[in-house]
Every structure is written in structure tokens, then in C-alpha cells.
């Protein structure tokens, strides 16, 4: 069971949260100028790293806010959480 520190609500248990994908993920645009390859990169291709990764999470059964989380996919250690747009501590971005 992970204890995740929501930047708005503080530490809560894992079942309150939803994983929302790795970061950075920037939607290409404008849509009429985006080729199939760029759409495939955005929609499907992922780094899926073994090690620390920056992710977007949703406090689904809490404040319903999205936030950023830095987590190891090997040990599940959570290094940091931050509000969207907030900068992460040095060396974690």
C-alpha cells in the first residue's frame, strides 16, 4: 500500500488515487497540421522507464485535483509530489 502525499490534502492511502500517465506529455497541435507519426508518439509511445519517473496522478476520491509525483518503478519509493505547474526540488524534474 502506497502512502501518497497529496499536495492539497496531505498523506492518504493509495486507493484514493488514480495514476494518470507519465510526464512530460505535450499534445501536438494544431490538429490539422499534426501527422500520423506525431499523433502516434503522443497517444501511444511511452518511455516506460525502469527507475524514477515523473507522473501525473489524480486524487480521485479526495480533492479531485491532478498533481505531479516522482516515483521509482522498481521500489515504488515516492521522492516528491507537487502541484501542477509548481517546480519540483532540484534534480527531480
Amino acid at each position, binding site marked *: 500500500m502506497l502512502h501518497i502525499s497529496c499536495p492539497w490534502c496531505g498523506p492518504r492511502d*493509495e486507493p484514493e488515487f488514480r495514476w494518470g500517465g507519465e510526464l512530460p506529455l505535450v499534445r501536438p497541435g494544431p490538429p490539422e497540421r499534426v501527422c*500520423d507519426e506525431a499523433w502516434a508518439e503522443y497517444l501511444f509511445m*511511452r518511455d*516506460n522507464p525502469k527507475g524514477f519517473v515523473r507522473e501525473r496522478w489524480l486524487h480521485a476520491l479526495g480533492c479531485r485535483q491532478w498533481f505531479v509525483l516522482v516515483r521509482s*518503478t522498481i521500489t*515504488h519509493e515516492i521522492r516528491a509530489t507537487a502541484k501542477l505547474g509548481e517546480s519540483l526540488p532540484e534534480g527531480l524534474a
Partner: protein
Amino acid sequence: MRFSALALARNAVSFHRRWPQFWRSPEPRPHYDVIVVGGGGHGLATAYYLAKEHGIRNVAVIEKGWLGGGNTGRNTTVVRSNYFYPESARLYDLSLRLYEGLSRDIGFNIMLSQRGILTLAHNTHQMEMLARWLNAMHLNGIDGELLGPSEIRKWAPLLNDSPTARYPVKGAVLQRRAGVARHDAVAWGYARAADALGVDIIQNCEVLGFLREGDRIVGIETTRGRICAPKVALAVAGHSSVLAAKAGFRLPITSYALQAFVTEPVKPALSCVVMSMATGAYVSQSDKGELVTGGALDLYPSYAQRGNLPTLQAAVAGLLELFPCFSRLRMLRQWAGIVDVVHDSSPIIDRAPVKGLYLNCGWGTGGFKAIPGGGFVFAHLLATGRPHPAAEGFTLGRFTSGAMIDEGAAAGISH
């Protein structure tokens, strides 16, 4: 060495101390025709069919740990071919047909038990989905029957079919040819058969990087030195993205832990495999008497080969809704494998974007049932350079063209 009653008797006299090793453990040679990375079921089957079907015997299988120690040793051993789309039906039924003849083919008892699989529906909408799915199976030439509650009771008498149950049992699709097989025996049998044909199986050898000549991959750098080959084939499931990153490209894969667990052994209580569309739980009873069960994927990507508790609890809760009488059984073991999930829940059997590299990945939660078929079509691609007719459509390019084979809903479980 072949297994026979005579060999068994002879070895019984010597207290079973003189059985030969099933495969050699050779030092890696500097050059092979094909290197297969990944000594799980898919990698070993690929090497076997390269040697047997295509006469390519100068092959090495490179394994980071031990044979069958990844997902091949961590699944729930279910084999079936009840898929929705024609492409999937061709591929998974090829695999099931190969499973049906495998013990004889490789001279190793894989303990295939075609005991049937029941996929349950709990409401009218799921019944309609089941009927649609069954029609697709029939159009694809796959066996299947729709059962009503009274027939289901005969197949699984312990199932909670009370009309007041939280998940009342309205009906089920039965595939009689589906069942279970002994997972370790599949890996060991393929390894032994491939070794007998001259394939070098090299364990405890991790791939550190790829050797390049121009824009082409010509071999691998490993913890046991450099090994060259004009064709390098990846069959590494949940670690596909890690090796792809070393080769300089990305894949449409996310790696998750998928858990399974077994209870203490009990007398025969369940003769078939039962899968529930609503709860995501599935269960069968092993020959030892343990109930082998599993559920949904863990909630976030992971390379840790252990599961988290909330998912385990959800799977157990789903199981107990179906079989309340299992509530007093104690869990013996729990584990997880790292599965390579793609967005349409169908595999990728294709050339990689880098020359000289080939991909067999994306099987997600259903790789075990596909071992013989996956190995067969991957060997065909490696040997001939063309996709096998049963593997057409399972390309990497479908994520760009949009020609998905979306088994997400049709595959029977929620992922």
C-alpha cells in the same frame, strides 16, 4: 535422452540420481545466426521453431536470470483461444493447436488439461456481449457454447448462483478446448528440445547494450562479453521498453505488475476454469489441489515483481462473491509478473524501427497461452523476413495507421 517406461524403470533402480541434464550450459560463442533475448516461453519456443521448422540451428537464447523465471513462471497457466477478431482467433488458435500436440512434439509432458473455461455473465447486458462474442468465435471457427444457469451448475456446483447474489449467474460461454498446462514444463520442454537441436541456452547473461554497424544492429554487449548476430530478436515482455531504449526507440508499451496467488491445497472442488466479466476474478484448481487465482492489473506501472495489497484484496473480494465457500481457505503464496500492456491488448510481432532487430512483445496479461503460437510466427518472421499468415496485422505500424486489433473488451478480462 527420451522419456520412456524403460528409462523410468532404469533410473528408479539408480534412485533417480543418473538422469542427464536437460540442456547444456555452454559458454557463449562470438557469433550466431540469430540471438534470441529472453529465456522465457516465447524466446525458447522461438529458438525451437527456428531450429525445427527453418533449419536455423546456430541460435543463442540469452537470459538475464534463469529459464522461465519471468512471466512464464508467474502466470495462472490458462490456455484458451476465445478471442473476438479474426486476426486474434488465427493466432491464438494456432497456439492452442500447437499446445494440443506439444507434449508429443517435444517429448516432454506439459500436462495440458483441456478442462474447459467458463466466462460468466451476471446481467442482461453481459449476456448480450457474450452472445455477440460467441457469434464472432463461431465465425472464426473457434469452438464455444452458451450455457444457461442449470448447465453452469453442473460445471461449477460451488458457484454462488442464488438469485439474490451480488453477482447472479445469468449464463456463460464455455470453451471446452481451453484449460491449463504446466507452466514450468513448457519452458523446460522447449529448452530441452531446442538444446537437442543445437541451440545454445545461456543463462545469467544480461544484455547491456547493442552493437551497431552504421544504422544496423549486429549483436549485443552482455555481462559475458560481446555476441554478434545479423538478427537479434527480443522476447522480453515487460522489459521490452528498457531494451528498446538501449536501441534508441520507444514502444507503445506500459509495464504493470499482474498478480496471482494460490490457496492451500484442498480436495477436488472445481473441475474447470472460471472467469467473471464483472469482478475480473478468475480461478482454477491445480493438480496439487491449490486454487490458482488472479484478478486485475495493479494500479500503476511497475517493474517490481510483487503486487500491491489493494489489488489483491479486490481480486479476493471478487472471487468470494463467486465462491463464498472459498472464504475459509488460507493463501499460501502470492507473486506478480511484469506484463507489457499495449493500448489494444494485442501483441506486436514485427521488425523493430532499427535494422537487424525484431520484436515479440505486447502480449500483456495473456502471454502464456500464446507461447507456442508466438514462438512459431516469430521464428517464421526471423527466418523468412515476412510475417506468418497467422500474425498479419500484429505490426508496430498499426499504432500509426490506426488499424488496431482491439481485444481490450473481447479478451475476457478487463485489460
